[in-house]
């Protein structure tokens, strides 16, 4: 009767563990690996020797060997992690550089040509037009509460109008109370609240910023996009002033031969509301595919501030009135540069970025 091939398994395992503990570099570990767990290892040899065992003993032996292998492999892996951390620590130590000691005279200086993003360029041009018309520029956060994004804008909870905006909800607070802003309009509410608190009306401001809608991106839409809105709250402001501002802006930004027109629309926060369209910049109003032969391109929405919105922020609608308008910055850029696919804006391909200056 032959003694069990696994008679010395405990000692053999201990020996392997000792070997592992003695490995002092990743390279050594890699060299030793075949003799510890690989084909040339004692574990593999034991496996092969099972032939001498009676079939009924093989299962038990197999389980013992499997357990020994698990112990050894796990020791090897943890040693591998230790050694690679050690190696990284050593590399980092050797690689260390006191950046406070950098001698600027010796440093590598930038010497290439850069490019601002098309959105930044477009936003600046738009801001400049409005600044020249007497507007200030305001900004607001990208994460908002439902109150600022909807309710203060006369869009109550569960109102079907909320469905007009495909909203990303943030996992904070009660469900659907925190949102990625779907438009820059909440900044209007912040601005009006602030003006009331500081008693600093009137307001003449434009609000550019990043917005989010849960809408699968395609060649003409991105789920993340940029908008610019305008807000005027002053004494004696009417629809005629709104139409005048839109017209002046259109000519200043697109050129003197581009006109604007308003047609009735619906936004919960303005009344009367309008969509505004400008002469198609591709065909100059002749009619083409881009404008579906109408000669006009829809740019954005606008309207006289709804009395309910003024009331929500505590502005006296008898003394003050105002208007708001808004449109896409990305869309303006797309129109001006005839960008066939908006997704190019977020791909950050330098061959695209290099075209703008």
């Amino acid at each position, binding site marked *: 009767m032959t003694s069990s091939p696994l008679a010395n398994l405990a000692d053999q395992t201990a020996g392997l563990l000792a070997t592992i503990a003695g490995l002092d570099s990743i390279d050594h570990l890699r060299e030793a690996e075949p003799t510890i767990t690989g084909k040339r290892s004692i574990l593999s040899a034991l496996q092969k020797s099972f032939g001498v065992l009676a079939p009924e003993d093989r299962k038990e032996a197999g389980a013992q060997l499997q357990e020994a292998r698990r112990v050894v492999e796990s020791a090897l892996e943890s040693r591998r992690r230790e050694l690679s951390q050690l190696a990284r620590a050593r590399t980092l130590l050797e690689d260390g550089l006191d950046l406070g000691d*950098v001698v600027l005279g010796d440093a590598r200086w930038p010497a290439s040509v850069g490019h601002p993003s098309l959105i930044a360029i477009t936003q600046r041009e738009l801001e400049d037009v409005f600044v020249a018309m007497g507007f200030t520029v305001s900004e607001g956060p990208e994460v908002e509460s439902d109150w600022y994004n909807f309710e203060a804008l006369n869009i109550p909870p569960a109102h079907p109008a909320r469905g007009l905006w495909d909203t990303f909800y943030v996992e*904070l607070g009660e469900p659907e109370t925190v949102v990625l802003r779907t438009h820059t309009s909440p900044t209007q509410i912040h601005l009006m609240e602030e003006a009331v608190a500081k008693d600093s009306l009137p307001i003449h401001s434009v609000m550019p910023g990043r917005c989010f809608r849960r809408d699968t991106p395609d060649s003409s839409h991105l789920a993340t996009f940029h908008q610019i809105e305008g807000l005027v709250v002053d004494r004696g402001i009417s629809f005629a002033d709104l139409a005048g501002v839109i017209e002046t802006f259109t000519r200043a930004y697109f050129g003197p031969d581009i006109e604007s027109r308003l047609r009735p629309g*619906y936004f919960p926060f303005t009344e009367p509301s309008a969509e505004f369209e400008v002469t198609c910049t591709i065909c100059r109003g002749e009619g083409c595919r881009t404008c579906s032969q109408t000669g006009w391109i829809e740019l954005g929405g606008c309207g006289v501030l709804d009395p309910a919105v003024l009331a929500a922020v505590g502005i006296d609608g008898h003394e003050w009135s105002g208007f708001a308008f808004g449109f896409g910055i990305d869309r303006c850029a797309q129109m001006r540069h005839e960008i066939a696919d908006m997704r190019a804006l977020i791909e950050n391909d330098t061959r695209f970025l290099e075209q703008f200056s």
Partner: protein
Amino acid sequence: MKISLAWLREFVELTESSDELRVILDDLGLVVEGVERVGEGLEDVVVARIDEIHAIEGADRVRLVVVDAGHGPLEIVCGAMNIDLGDHVPLAPIGAVLPGGFVIAQRQMRGVTSNGMLCSARELGLGDDHRGLMVLDEIIEPVVGVGLMEALSITPDVVFDITVEGNRPDAWSVEGVARDLATRLGRPLWSPRLAEPNGEETSAAYASAGIDDPDLCGRLTVSVLHHVRVGPSPSWVVDRVQSAGMRAISNVVDASNLVMLELGQPTHAYDAAHVAQRTLRARRARRGEMLVTLDGVQRELATAGRGLGDTGEDCVIVDGDDTVLGLAGIMGGATSEINDATTDVLLESAYFDPMGIARSSKRHGLRTEGSNRFERGVDPGLALRAAARFVHVLHESCPELEWLRDPLDVAGITPTPPTIEFDERDIARVLGVAIESDEVTSILTGLRFDVSVSGERFTVVPPRARPDVRGGVAGSADVIEEIARLHGYGRLPRHTPTWPQPGGLSERQKLRRHLRDVVVDLGAAECWTPTLGSDGDFDLLRPEGARVRITNPLASDEAVLRATMITGLVRAWGKNLERGTGNVVLAEIGNVFTHPDVTASPRMTKGGVGGSVTLTLPQENERLTVVLGREGDDATAAVAFWATVAERLGLADVVVRTSDTPEPGFHPTRVAQLVDRASGTVLGSVGEVDSVLVEGLVASAPARRLGLVDVDFDALSDPSRATRRSEFAKVPSRFPSAVIDLAFVAPEPLHAQDLAFELRGASELVEKVELFDVYRGSNLPDGTRSLAYRVRFSSDEGTLSEVHVATARDQLIARAGSLGATLR
């Protein structure tokens, strides 16, 4: 909404061309998204009979067909196999232009001349069937040579595809659009033909109706119809329903759809034989009640959803056994559905609370033609008029139809239209121009508002079809919008206002522009990387860290708000590297987000219904991140990049201090903090991208260093945290400067730039201090290195004497000594 011009013409006389009408509809805010011309391209198509079919030698896919279209035999090559001799099919002769603009010409195929084309239904725009030719014998009794339009009784028509805004439920019908047109054009609006009850018996003797919850159901009318015979609709009904893009199903269903399309009132027909005790009641669903709707889905009722403001209420229609028959206003159940055997019908025509329908429809994910209309607000006064129209339409296919007297009509709660007062000055104040009183009256009367005028004062009550018109001041804005809309926005004046307050940018905005310009000047291409990223990306820098998550992301790898732009920029660099354009500097200015649980300054704001809850929002931080990816770029290039930025922005007092605090994403031993000495604020970090991060983001990452600058723009734009150089300019001394070099043995913890700053302040004569050499070696004490500075002295008083320079030198050495640095 698709609206047929022919249908509109039943309500108002329209002599305008379809192009002219399109312009008018657009100007009324009924935006025409598309125009479809029915019958266009069918003018030249005629009925032809197939007289001979021959195989063509060498062709097994096409055959030679000889047809007669009234002018003798005509040879045509045809690929269809579904025809036999004697069949009648549509023929497009040479010169015909089919829908879509396809021009038929004489063609040679397989050596045979084809003199036209035999058409499938799809080729003619008459259906989806394109498996073979349209065999006319299956649908009509065709006569050879007759025009196809005449043969199929197709009337040329124009169908407008109109978008109706959410505040115009009244315009979501043929009659509603016609009303706008009639008012704008100053023409009368005609009413459709309506039936009168003709039964002997009263409705109450046969059926009953009730409302248990009047807040959810504002009106429930039930009409009893006997001698209904379910079958196909008359062709004009089919045409109308199909023109709106709906399918014709049976005379009962089609009549219901026609009435909804025409007047805007959804109705529901029940088979009276399957309604217990012929009773319909509207009530709140009870918790645990179930319903299988017509779409075959089993729905659990009265269970609160996740939506904000969702109470879980459902309004249901039940029968006399209190069994739920349907989800009111949204979808019926299968049990009481109309079928071929139906002879007695209970027709429900009701008003349901719009918000209730909106909540139920959203929660059950069930949007139907009915729910879409009810949630916007159906005219509560329309119910019985719609029933009368339904009966009139159905009567044509059920001549014995009997409509019992006194239809059941139970009232719940419906909104009372407000009374709105305003005067001519209010109109001028909102619109910037006065509108003639007569015009105001005729516009509002045309739109069915009650108007009374007293002097300059209007008192107006909107029709019940206009739930969008509110009371009070808001209501007058609503009415003035209607006046402006019908008057024509294009006719209103324009005036560009001016005001004394100056426009302009804030200091922060100016600084951002300046920063962007500087970064671009230094060779960076500005990027736009995603705000929404994956958990995996987040874990690369902040494993297990608290993150701001999106509840309903478009994709699982777009579920987390970014905490840094480093990840996005490194990935963008990697993509460019793959394209062979990796020799670039990439920069982004944008917001990053920190979960409120782990930020010292979470943003508090009001939210929830009525803004009654205080919410804690993530901290938003605007940053500039620059990844220097050109070959040879490393941490020193990043330091130089930053030094230039700081110089250009006029930062007076920022030093680069090596830091032991690990900064996520940075190479742990090649990172330094940018510290404003005066305020102690850390403005950002400079260094190299951690190679582990690059390997995690860039496939086949090369062994290449990436410089990295990451700056807190919020801190940078705050003058109390980022100290600026004085705006006062100094005129340089006219007298020669003296230059000396000073090398100090400085302990490692003393930062080179801090020492330089100290030296600068040590004597009034110092003009400039510049580090020019750093030396570490075994001949220096452990834990020290040599820092060599070039110092330039000058004085406005005169040329510096050796004594002056020596004194100043001593002052500098003394100051260095006080910091532990000794002259070498």
